[in-house]
């Protein structure tokens, strides 16, 4: 079969919010079983927070538990004026061992193609056995691990550049 060339990517620019607001609203209506909180800040190469990024989280383990959502297992949040984001995914569905807490996709003005990444929890016993994390060079793994700040609460920042640049994936 003749292989087709993929359609190229273009930045979301600064104005995706109105089109995507239906999903922001869904994300803010926190369900009673939304127990896990993962928050952080998105930084550029100068260490400045990015206030116009949008992050999407995908948590396939929760697809059945979230069957009534418009898009089960999917959440989307814009960063705020301080570049901060917060996800509160359903915590009741157990993940497969070694799966990240969130698969994440980042969009922003000046980011010409969506960036795939993932975040793991530092106190998840399966982290070091993760088949995904094991494919990441040892020296960069820490960029994908959220630190615990309170029971069920974690903090994780995203760096688009610098020595601590977050690992971004190309899935195959």
């Amino acid at each position, binding site marked *: *079969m*003749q*292989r*087709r*060339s*993929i*359609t*190229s*990517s*273009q*930045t*979301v*620019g*600064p*104005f*995706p919010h*109105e*089109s*995507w607001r*239906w999903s922001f609203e869904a994300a803010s209506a926190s369900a009673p079983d939304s127990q896990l909180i993962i928050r952080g800040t998105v930084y*550029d*190469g*100068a260490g*400045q927070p990015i206030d*116009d990024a949008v992050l999407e989280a*995908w948590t*396939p383990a929760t*697809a059945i538990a979230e069957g009534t959502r*418009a*898009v*089960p*297992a999917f959440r989307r949040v814009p960063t705020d004026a301080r570049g901060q984001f917060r996800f509160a995914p359903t915590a009741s569905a157990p993940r*497969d061992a070694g*799966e990240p807490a969130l*698969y994440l*996709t980042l*969009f*922003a*003005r*000046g*980011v*010409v*193609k*969506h*960036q*795939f990444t993932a975040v793991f929890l530092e106190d998840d016993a399966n982290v070091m056995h993760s*088949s*995904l994390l094991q*494919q*990441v060079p040892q020296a960069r793994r820490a960029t994908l691990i959220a630190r615990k700040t309170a029971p069920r609460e974690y903090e994780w920042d995203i760096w*688009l*550049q610098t020595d601590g*640049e*977050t*690992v*971004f*994936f*190309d*899935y*195959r």
Partner: protein
Amino acid sequence: MKFDEVAAGQYPLPVYEPYKSTRLRGPLQAPLRVDAPTATTNAIQFSPALVTPIDADLTAHGSAAPLGEKIVVTGRVTDEDGQPVRDSLIEVWQCNSAGRYFHSRDQHDAPLDPNFFGFGKFLTRHDGRYRFVTIKPAAYPWGNHPNAWRPAHIHFSLFGNVYAQRLVTQMYFPGDPLHALDPIFNSVPDANARQALVARFSIEESVGDVMLGYVFDIVLRGRDATPFDH
């Protein structure tokens, strides 16, 4: 589903000097190729209640018809094998016929249209086709460099059938002299890949005395889809 490496020049350069915002925001390290079966095989489901017919007619969101040239945009979404990407969410957004976005951060001194907001969403059909009605967007200035004007474009956000197929891109209009001058368009090194972002005018898709038609076909990443993938 498997994801071949993207051919050189097909994607925009993460740091492309002429597009200023990329300088501090484009990742400097190449993305890490990894096996991730969950990301490449688990299907994404969309509730049918997510979209209503009016979501695919951006001219029907006000109390009267918006100003500008009404157009219809249609096309087919496939994977790299040419298989249809069906029942999959597409979101679009754009400025109005004066070049102004309905968005608090758009400070361009052009009028808002009380009958046009510029966003919509719809699902691809069983054959991968989509179709929506809108107003032709205008060019607008964006301050990237002296006399910087974006060519008219519509933003497209596609989910595909599995997580790793996600794509956000922009559709341009044929015959626009601003293409050659636009750093965002030209951040894609491959000339054919750039041209594939330009819709084709279609008299066949045009509708009588109502609107002209444009065709924009989209190819998402992914090969060897299983029946569960679409």
